[in-house]
């Protein structure tokens, strides 16, 4: 369809279709497809064809028809062998058919000349990289999961376009498209991890496996073993069979697939820079050994915690030496490091460049190419000028006067638009409809001097950036039926769990910032959809805010309903409604706070309010199938009454608003009841009740009780110094430092907005000098604590000298922007204690409250005070 046709075009296209000459002749009779009628379609075509690269335009017209500069060719020699540059120009699937003229022999000669000129006949260095087992399969899986096929529909099959790349080079370019001149400004950032990018490259260039060569590559080979018991005093590795072999860039225990009972043997060639004395070391838990040229230099066997052993100095000649390191982890903690010191450097770990091993590596197949010669280079330079290559490949190059400007072009089927373009005209292979569309454009060119409408801009930009290969939008485009069926995801969520969302009313649905974030940074909200939204900021930095602005203006309702004022009570009802305890169990399909839902994975509740327009949300919740037929979203309010009848009498509107209030807590929302957290992880996540955690605590003491509330507010009570140490919002705490291995690390607040309490105890008897006492264990006694029905704490302690007994309670309070805390004190003493004070932080300032004792019937005295902390 449309895209297949665009792909043969010069600028702004992606390498997709194998549009051979034969294909193009076929396409000349094909319908235009869904290319828009009138100006927008013609504009898009003119932009894609880079018409104004040759036919200069001015003012608004120049902006409207602006094209993307083609790759900079200045350093092409570093990235592409000249034989491949020539191949690129002459290949059946070349996007450059219009550059070369004449019969096959002439075209070939021209291609070689251009390549000679551009690359100077210099071959780039071969850069082989090892392809591990399974990498190709992983690449193929990624290609399909990430949705690469949406833009590259034919999977590059049978084509030469990328064959001139090396796997390492393609991997690097995919990982960071801005790092490679061919992709910069054209390929959006797919957020690929290094291993993902390499796997994709290995699969796309899998034909190079036939051209594998033995080369020395950086790193170490390793064999990985799993046994019940490793003899602590030395393992006979030859008797064991490795579970897996592979290569690593460093000496590490991290290759272990389990925590206990595994072993690794590393082998590599160590390059000694100069003759002299060297010392070697290993640091391991449990045992390790290090051999040089077969001699054991370091013996660090046995089962033990991390233990470092350094060798005596040994004399080594410059050059390669065999290195072998053995390691086993029997149980408990684990770790492995190794390295050396030499005449010119202190003890450090090995660097990957010092270690090499021989591996069979797929290499690029070289194309034959003539030896460099000046005549050929000169004729290439002349061709580069004559064919105006610079007008597309170099920014700001103006055309010779002899080429008509846009204003000078005649609105008729001549020049590039003629049946058989000749002389300086370029044959783009346009079909009849396309040629007539462009003639129309010329005829109406006066309109190009006015700003384009938002509606048309959406059409042009979404198509130019291939948005429509994944997303559908009325009047703009939609994915092809082939693409549509190839998307993968959670089948039990139907199309919503598999296909990138449609953008029909996206401006009414998403907030402007969510739209911008999505386009610029590739932010995604649908965990089940495997296709990955790329980040377009590196392609066009203005695209995100422009598209956001245009879609908002086109899609917005005239008078959208505005969100209700925040109410903590309504938010509490919303919290209940979203959970399983007397609620609608939203968490069956929606996660929250980084935790997965208990069933299929829909968008997270925590992102909703920042992402959705309230008015859209309200209409959606009231009747989802009415807005998106076939949706899996439950239509709980469809009957006009909520199934939860004891909240607001089952009134849908009020319940929908209450849920919105709850959603508006966003990152600080208490998690809904019923959410199941991963208890084997170290992240402490309060869901239905507070989580208590006793730990060593940074800047406090080794005896701290931290309490995380489901309202996503937390406190740390220092039981050694008998005082509330600090409070914070957001994540509670990660217990890794206290629960992993022998642990014993100091922990601290896991979230943000940390509010430190004033120094010293909260309750004190202040002497005549007015100095607040230090408090702590020497003068105060921890009595314990209670947990109420909701699990909220009351800490109990006493002041030894005065006999004052304190009960200090902490209760979370929901608030817009994050929960606060109410801290209340009940003080009791056998008789009135003069000069007793309570000192607290209310979130803004430190407050000192004099104690006013009230006498009870038994003669004992009491004082009660409550402080709300908002910060």
């Amino acid at each position, binding site marked *: 369809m449309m895209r297949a046709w665009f792909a043969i075009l010069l600028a702004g296209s992606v390498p997709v279709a194998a549009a051979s000459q034969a294909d193009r002749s076929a396409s000349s009779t094909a319908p235009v497809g869904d290319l828009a009628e009138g100006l927008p379609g013609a504009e898009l075509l003119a932009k894609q064809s880079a018409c104004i690269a040759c036919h200069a335009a001015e003012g608004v017209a120049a902006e409207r028809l602006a094209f993307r500069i083609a790759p900079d060719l200045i350093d092409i020699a570093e990235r592409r062998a000249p034989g491949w540059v020539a191949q690129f120009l002459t290949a059946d699937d070349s996007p450059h058919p219009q550059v070369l003229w004449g019969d096959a022999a002439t075209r070939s000669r021209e291609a070689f000349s251009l390549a000679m000129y551009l690359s100077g006949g210099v071959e780039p260095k071969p850069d082989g990289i090892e392809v591990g087992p399974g990498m190709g399969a992983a690449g193929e899986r990624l290609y399909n999961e990430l949705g690469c096929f949406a833009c590259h529909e034919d999977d590059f099959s049978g084509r030469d376009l990328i064959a001139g790349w090396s796997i390492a080079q393609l991997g690097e370019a995919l990982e960071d498209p801005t790092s490679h001149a061919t992709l910069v400004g054209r390929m959006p950032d797919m957020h690929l991890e290094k291993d993902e990018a390499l796997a994709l490259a290995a699969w796309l260039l899998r034909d190079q496996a036939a051209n594998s060569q033995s080369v020395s590559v950086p790193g170490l080979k390793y064999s990985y073993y799993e046994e019940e018991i490793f003899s602590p005093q030395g393992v006979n590795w030859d008797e064991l069979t490795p579970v897996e072999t592979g290569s690593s860039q460093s000496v590490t225990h991290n290759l272990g697939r389990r925590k206990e009972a595994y072993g690794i043997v590393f082998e590599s060639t160590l390059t000694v820079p100069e003759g002299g004395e060297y010392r070697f070391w290993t640091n391991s838990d449990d045992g390790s050994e290090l051999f040089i040229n077969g001699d054991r230099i370091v013996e660090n066997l046995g089962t033990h915690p991390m233990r470092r052993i350094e060798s005596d100095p040994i004399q080594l000649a410059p050059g390669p030496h065999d290195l072998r390191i053995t390691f086993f982890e029997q149980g408990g903690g684990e770790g492995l490091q190794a390295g050396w010191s030499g005449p010119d450097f202190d003890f450090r770990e090995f660097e990957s460049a010092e270690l090499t091993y021989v591996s069979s590596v797929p290499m690029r197949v070289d194309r034959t190419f003539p030896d460099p010669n000046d005549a050929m280079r000169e004729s290439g330079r002349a061709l580069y000028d004559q064919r105006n290559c610079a007008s597309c490949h170099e920014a700001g190059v103006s055309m010779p006067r002899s080429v008509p400007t846009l204003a000078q072009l005649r609105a008729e089927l001549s020049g590039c638009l003629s049946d058989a373009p000749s002389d300086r005209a370029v044959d783009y292979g346009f079909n009849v409809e396309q040629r007539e569309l462009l003639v129309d454009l010329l005829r109406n060119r006066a309109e190009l001097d006015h700003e384009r409408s938002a509606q048309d801009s959406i059409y042009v930009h979404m198509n130019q950036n291939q948005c429509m290969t994944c997303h559908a939008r009325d009047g703009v485009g939609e994915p092809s039926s082939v693409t549509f069926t190839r998307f993968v995801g959670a089948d039990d969520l139907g199309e919503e769990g598999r296909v990138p969302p449609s953008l029909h009313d996206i401006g009414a649905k998403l907030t402007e910032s969510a739209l911008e974030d999505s386009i610029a940074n590739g932010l995604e909200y649908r965990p089940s959809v495997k296709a990955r939204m790329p980040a377009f900021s590196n392609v066009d930095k203005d695209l995100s805010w422009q598209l956001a602005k245009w879609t908002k203006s086109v899609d917005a309702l005239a008078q959208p309903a505005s969100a209700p004022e925040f109410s903590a009570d309504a938010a509490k009802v919303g919290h209940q409604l979203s959970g399983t305890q007397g609620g609608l169990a939203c968490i069956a399909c929606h996660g929250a706070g980084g935790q997965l839902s208990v069933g299929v994975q829909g968008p997270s509740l925590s992102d909703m309010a920042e992402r959705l327009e309230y008015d859209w949300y309200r209409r959606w919740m009231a009747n989802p199938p009415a807005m998106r037929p076939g949706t899996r979203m439950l239509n709980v309010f469809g009957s006009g009454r909520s199934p939860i009848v004891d909240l607001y009498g089952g009134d849908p509107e009020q319940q929908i608003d209450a849920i919105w209030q709850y959603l508006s807590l966003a990152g600080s929302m208490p998690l809904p009841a019923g959410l199941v957290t991963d208890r084997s992880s170290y992240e402490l996540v309060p869901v239905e009740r507070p989580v208590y955690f*006793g730990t060593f605590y940074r800047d406090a003491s*080794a005896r701290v009780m931290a309490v995380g509330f489901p309202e996503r507010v937390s406190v740390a009570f220092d*039981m050694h110094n008998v005082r509330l140490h600090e409070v914070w919002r957001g994540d509670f705490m990660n217990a890794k430092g206290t629960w992993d291995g022998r642990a014993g690390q100091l922990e601290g607040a896991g979230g943000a907005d940390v509010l430190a309490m004033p120094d010293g105890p909260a309750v004190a008897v202040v002497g005549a000098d007015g100095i607040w006492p230090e408090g702590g264990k020497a003068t105060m006694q921890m009595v314990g604590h209670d947990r109420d029905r909701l699990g909220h704490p009351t800490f109990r302690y006493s002041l030894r000298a005065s006999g004052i007994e304190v009960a200090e309670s902490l209760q979370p309070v929901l608030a817009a922007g994050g929960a606060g805390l109410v801290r209340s004190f009940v003080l009791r003493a056998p008789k009135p204690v003069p000069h007793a004070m309570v000192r607290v932080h209310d979130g803004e300032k430190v407050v000192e409250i004099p104690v006013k004792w009230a006498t009870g019937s038994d003669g004992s005295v009491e004082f009660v005070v409550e402080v709300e902390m908002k910060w």
Partner: protein
Amino acid sequence: MVMVATLLGAVALFSAAQEPSESDFYEVIDIEIPDNVVLEVGGLEQVGPETLLACTRRGEVWRIDDFRSSKPEFSLWADGLQEPLGLLSQKGWIYCVTRGELMRMRDSDDDGSADEFRTIADGWDISGNYHEYNFGPRVDLQGNLWLTTNKPFGGEPFGRVEWRGWAMKVTPEGEMIPFAGGLRSPAGVEVSPWGEPFYTDNQGEWCGASKLSHIEEGDFHGHPHGIGSAKLPGSRVEHPGDVPNGIMMPLAKDEVRGFKLPAVWFPYDKMGRSPSGMAWDTSGGFFGPFDGQLFVGDQYSAELMRGSLEEVEGHWQGACYPFRHGLGTGLIRVRQLEGGEMLVGGSDRGWAALGAKPWALQRLRWTGKVPFEVLEMKAAPGGFVLHFTETIDPDTLDNVELKMSSYTYELHAAYGSKEFETENLNVGPLQSLPLDSKAYFLPVKGLRSGYVHELHIDGVRSINGEALLHKQVYYTLIHLAEAPE
């Protein structure tokens, strides 16, 4: 794992006529732990006929209902305790020692989780070092609670603190009495059925070999780290002065003020490496023939070891015996259940263990078959008396193979001690005794006080034709038995 155990069992039965196997006599039953529970067992207590409480190194207390069923029910009873390593149920409260305090807690509104947490004693401090564990509490016949404090090992971010490496007695009124010092890593504390507190210690610096020791007022157990606290008010220990670095244990008794020799040494790698929790068998025979004896877990070797004690010259001493290997993980706690089964649990976190699991909770059940074992080795004038679980077949008595060596350890700052002054002793032959058909006198030449006497015995069969299940006994002879006058 269950399947493996079954297979091993089957193999063992098949060859039982020749070589008996531990599993013929003591069956190990896994208590299934749900996937979402990290049960790094620190403490165990039975609180109902079918209900356990287990506290974990992560600070949680789990209630386990129907623990004998194939699907026990786990529910979180409390959380946030700081590395609790023991539980005790008493008078409606659950007592526990955390890093910072001896405390008790209860579920006052009976809603299934604890709501009232009360400090009983917190007279020691923590420097913020991972090794500062506390163990206990156990209760004696007067209602005193006993606990032990570990010494730090590595960095101390909050500075040096007092009372590390001590055995504490806490009176029913909550007064903490620093009762004995010089402990190293006292991972198990227990009160004997006759009311005396004992503890196990792990070999390392100033503790040449792992040991079981009797806690008596004023004892110094050898490690100088925390003994400075002896000068503080409340200490019942007189400061021993400078401890000589490198002195044989039997001599240290005379050279170092208050120095206490152990009741039992556990020779390294012969009897585990890291003794931990322990329990006396008080079931009256429901756990087999070892009624009244001691069972000690090992955190490295995932085995349960056996011990017997006798008082000689006012000092508790005795022997240790291999008992049951191949448990799920490194053992931390051992408790006897009502009905006689032994409950064991632990974790290999931080220290390598031979068990296959990161954490485990298991029951050991006597199968009803009596193993042919040295039931007890006791000191006697000129040798030892060996009590067997069965009478020896008289036809095999002449075939007995006997070997004995003795050795001791050095008190020094370096980590662990090798065996010193080893001698092979002239032993045997076994002599029948008139009053007990299962007891034999073992004459030994060259007994030495303050030395482990390691016995290897083989070649005999029981009257039923069975070979000895275990062939080693390690007797820590602190005092020689005198002939009655």
